[in-house]
C-alpha cells in the first residue's frame, strides 16, 4: 500500500445476519483528505464508517487504516486505534450528566495524565475553536442542536486525532448551524491535517467542503469523483441523487408483484368486482 494512503478498503463485504449490506467494496482515501460517502438511507454508508472505526468486522476483505488491518485487531489494538480517532455522531452523543467542560475534557482525562490546569486550558482552546468559549458550565440540555453538535466536535478533536469520522453531521440543523458546522469541519480539517470521512446525504453543503465523494447504493460503490466531477456527472443515479429527483434509477414506488387493481379487489373475478 502506498504510504500516501491512510484508509483502504479491499473487497469488503458485510452482512447483518443473512441480509447483505456491503458487497465487495473497494475504497482508497489518501492521508489528509476530507472524503464524503453519500447514499440514500439504508444504503450501507454508516456501516462503512463503523467498519473503519472497528465497531464492526467485515465477513470478507480488509479494512486498512494507517497500514494496519482493523478487521483483525484484538480489543487492545482496537482501543489503541481508537485513541487516534475522533468521531462526530449524528446528534452529538454528548454525555447528558456532564457539563460542556467535562464532556470536552472527558477524552483528555481518560487518556492523559495532564494536570487540571492544563486540561482547563486545552478545553477552553477547543471550545474557542468551535466558537463556544464561555459555555463551559452549561449542561447539554441547555444547548441548541447546533451548539451541541459543535461541543461534540470540540470533544472529538480534543486529542488532535489523525482520523476524523463524521456520521451525518448536518442532520436536523437549521441552515445557519449547518453552514457553521460545515465551515468548522473544513477549517479544522485543514488546520489539523486530519484525514476525514464524512457520511452524509446533504449533497450541496458537502460538495462545497470535501475533496472527494463516493456514492453508495445497495451496498456497492456506484460512482466517485471530485465535487466538480460529481456536479458534471451524466450518470443517471448521480444526477438523481444530486438534484433530488423523485424518480429515476432509484424508484419512487416500492417494488411489488401485484397491481393496484388486484390489491383493491377490482380485478375481474375479485371480491368487489
Amino acid at each position: 500500500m502506498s504510504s500516501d494512503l491512510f484508509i483502504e478498503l479491499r473487497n469488503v463485504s458485510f452482512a447483518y445476519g443473512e441480509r447483505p449490506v456491503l458487497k465487495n467494496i473497494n475504497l482508497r482515501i489518501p492521508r489528509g483528505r476530507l472524503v464524503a460517502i453519500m447514499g440514500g438511507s439504508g444504503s450501507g454508508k454508516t456501516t462503512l464508517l463503523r467498519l473503519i472505526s472497528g465497531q464492526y468486522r467485515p465477513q470478507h476483505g480488509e479494512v486498512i487504516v494507517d497500514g494496519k488491518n482493523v478487521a483483525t485487531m484484538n480489543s487492545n489494538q482496537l482501543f489503541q486505534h481508537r485513541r487516534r480517532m475522533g468521531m462526530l455522531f449524528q446528534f452529538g452523543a454528548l454525555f447528558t450528566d456532564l457539563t460542556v467542560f467535562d464532556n470536552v475534557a472527558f477524552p483528555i482525562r481518560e487518556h492523559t495524565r495532564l494536570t487540571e490546569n492544563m486540561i482547563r486550558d486545552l478545553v477552553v482552546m477547543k471550545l474557542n475553536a468551535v466558537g463556544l468559549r464561555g459555555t463551559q458550565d452549561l449542561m447539554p440540555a441547555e444547548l441548541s442542536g447546533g451548539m451541541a453538535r459543535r461541543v461534540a466536535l470540540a470533544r472529538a478533536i480534543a486529542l488532535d486525532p489523525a482520523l476524523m469520522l463524521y456520521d451525518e453531521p448536518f442532520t436536523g440543523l437549521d441552515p445557519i448551524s449547518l453552514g457553521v458546522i460545515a465551515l468548522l469541519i473544513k477549517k479544522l480539517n485543514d488546520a489539523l491535517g486530519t484525514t476525514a470521512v464524512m457520511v452524509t446525504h446533504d449533497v450541496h453543503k458537502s460538495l462545497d467542503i470535501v475533496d472527494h465523494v463516493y456514492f453508495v447504493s445497495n451496498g456497492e460503490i456506484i460512482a466517485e469523483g471530485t465535487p466538480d466531477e460529481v456536479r458534471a456527472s451524466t450518470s443517471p443515479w448521480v444526477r438523481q441523487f444530486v438534484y433530488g429527483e423523485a424518480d429515476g434509477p432509484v424508484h419512487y414506488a416500492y417494488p411489488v408483484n401485484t397491481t393496484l387493481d388486484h390489491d383493491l379487489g377490482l380485478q375481474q373475478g375479485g371480491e368487489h368486482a
Partner: protein
Amino acid sequence: MLELFAAPVRKLGHLTINAIWRLGFVSRFLIAILMESGQSFMRFSLVIREVYFAGVLSLIIIIVSGLFVGMVLGLQGYNTLARFGSSDALGALVALSLLRELGPVLAALLFASRSGSAMTAEIGLMKATEQLDAMNIMAVSPIARVVAPRFWAGVISMPILAALFNVMGIFGGYLVGVVMIGLDSGTYWSQMNNSVDLHYDVVNGLIKSLVFGIAVTLIAVFEGYDATPTAAGVSSATTRTVVTSALVILALDFILTAFMF
C-alpha cells in the same frame, strides 16, 4: 390433532432455550463487569457518585416504608400475641420478622423499583442516544466507566439500606407497641435483646441483602445495556428489570432461608 399439542410444546421449548441463552449472556456480562472493575476501584469517586444516586436518594422511600412496615407489624403482632397472652414478645417478633425476612426482601423490592429501574433507564437511554458508542469510539470501555461503578454502588448500598429499613421498622414497632398501646419499653427491648442473635439473625439478614443487591443491580445494568435502543425498548427493559428483580428476590429468599434458618 398432533399439531394442536405441538404448538404449545414448541413455544415452551423456544421460551426455555431463550431463557437459558439469556442466563448465559447475564453470566458473561457479570464476568466482564468483574474483569473491568479494577478501574472502578482505582477511581472510587465514580462509585461514590453512584452510591449517592442509587443509595442516598433511596433513603426517603426506605425510611418511610420501614417505619410503616414496623408499625403494621407492631399492630398485627400485638393483636395476635395478645390472644395467647404473649404480648410481651412483641419486640422479638418485630425484630426477627424484620431482620430475617421483611427487611432484606422489602428493601430489595423497593431498591429494584426505585434505583434498579432508574439504572436501566439511564443506561438504556445512554445506549439509545449513542453515548455508549461515543465512549467506545473514544477508547473508553462503557462497562468499566458506566456499568461497573453502578454495579458496585448497588452492591454497597443494598445492605446499608436494608439495615436502615430494619432500624426504622423496629422503631415503628416501638412507636405502636410502647408509645401507642402502652407495652413496657424495657420488656420490648429486652425481649428483642434475648431473642436476636447477632450472627444467626443480623448477619444472615445482611448476607441476604448483599445477595439481593448483587442480583438486582446485575439485572438492572444488564437490562439497560441490552435494551433495544428505542423509546419502547427502554420502557420494556425498565419493566423487565422490576418484574425480573421481584421474582428473583423472592426465589433467592426462599433458597437462602432454606439454607440459613
